[in-house]
């Protein structure tokens, strides 16, 4: 497991943006039946999700979050040295969406900008990359944009996925802070053998789009989807997290020289409430330290950690220094965790985007 520890980095602020349209349990009852929909909602902890319309992109949500963040922090756009866009729902096959976002946010042409294609672990990799750039001196300020409109890859008739997922975009501003002795510790890992269990198999180069791949047919458990829709084997995802996450969390705590009692807040990838409660018990973290943002927003994949920080921990992040444990895990399989000593943050906010 790749483990690293830094200081001299400051988390300046973070914003999230969600689509205006709300999907409810009542909407699901029309498709899957009332009893089934209630049971799913009780287990997942998802009462509402925000849904992007047919042309709203993750970049649009991230752009809005980024604009608000730059304005609120009073950061000159020209002061941002690097832009990282983490998403599995990029605008185009090419060019990189980060290039579009550099121009849309009015960042300087001297700004480095690139995409990273990761999901549930994406925020952890984004923070790690941003921290690496700052720690090495390659950048003084980094804008980390993490977002997905994953529901645009989900069949509304797949009950193993449709009730769970929602859309969001986030922006996190990080900068060098030479006098800051508070530390950031990371642990990361990968196991590509798990790729088949959480995948949208068709529509790109490995299995090109065709009439056949676009056709939605009945699959296991009566779920209806196409080969271009997201497929998730929930039992395999659960078994993966059961195997990896306790080790990951204990590993990063030990590398940081901390115990669970040193941690003020734990923010897991918002997979589903059942799984997060299970993990908290297994790891030995008190339930009241675990941020749960699923109720209103569901599982938004890559932005779920920063979204939960903004919606559930805004007051804590704004008011005083905090030590947070973050852990993202899933599609890939890919995972990452960090113990971050941060705050108080100058700017934390949530905005809503039409479309």
């Amino acid at each position, binding site marked *: 497991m790749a483990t690293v520890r830094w200081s001299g980095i400051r988390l300046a602020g973070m914003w999230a943006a969600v689509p205006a349209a709300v999907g409810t349990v009542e909407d699901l009852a029309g498709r899957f039946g009332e009893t089934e929909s209630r049971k799913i909602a009780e*287990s997942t902890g998802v009462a509402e999700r925000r849904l992007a319309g047919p042309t709203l992109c993750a970049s649009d949500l991230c752009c809005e979050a980024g604009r608000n963040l730059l304005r609120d922090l009073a950061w000159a756009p020209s002061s941002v040295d690097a832009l990282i866009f983490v998403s599995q729902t990029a605008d185009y096959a090419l060019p990189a969406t980060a290039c579009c976002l550099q121009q849309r946010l009015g960042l300087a042409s001297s700004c480095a900008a690139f995409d990273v294609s990761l999901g549930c672990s994406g925020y952890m990799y984004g923070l790690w990359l941003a921290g690496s750039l700052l720690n090495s001196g390659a950048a003084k300020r980094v804008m980390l944009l993490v977002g997905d409109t994953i529901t645009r890859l989900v069949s509304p008739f797949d009950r*193993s996925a449709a009730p769970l997922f929602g859309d969001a975009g986030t922006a996190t501003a990080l900068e060098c802070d030479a006098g800051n002795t508070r530390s950031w510790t990371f642990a990361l890992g990968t196991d590509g053998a798990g790729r088949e269990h959480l995948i949208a198999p068709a529509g790109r180069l490995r299995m090109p789009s065709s009439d056949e791949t676009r056709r939605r047919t009945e699959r296991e458990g009566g779920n209806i989807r196409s080969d271009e829709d997201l497929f998730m084997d*929930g*039992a395999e995802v659960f078994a993966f997290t*059961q*195997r990896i996450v306790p080790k990951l969390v204990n590993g990063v705590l030990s590398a940081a020289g901390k115990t669970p009692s040193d941690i003020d807040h734990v923010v897991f990838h918002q997979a589903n409430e059942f799984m997060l409660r299970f993990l908290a018990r*297994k790891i030995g973290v008190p339930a009241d330290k675990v941020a749960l943002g699923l109720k209103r927003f569901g599982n938004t994949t890559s932005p779920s950690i920063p979204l939960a920080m903004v919606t559930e921990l805004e007051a804590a992040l704004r008011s005083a220094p905090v030590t947070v444990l973050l852990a993202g895990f899933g599609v890939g399989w890919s995972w990452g965790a960090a113990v971050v000593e941060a705050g108080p943050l100058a700017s934390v906010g949530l905005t809503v985007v039409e479309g």
Partner: protein
Amino acid sequence: MEIIDQVLDIVAEIVETDRAGLTGATVLAGIAWDSLAAVSFLAAADEKFGKTLAPRKLTTCTTIGDLAALVEAAE
């Protein structure tokens, strides 16, 4: 308590049905056993028996008795 009795308790709770109506021979397909139930069973096997079940093996179970045998055989 025998493993099969504990498994019957777990299954009754997961599918929200009367425990008295279930036996080792009860067929899972007849009691609303779905992917959500499978995940709940993986968690229960960990918390109640300290065992990690392989999802691939879980999908081959057709009766509650099969579930109990899987738990017994697991590490």
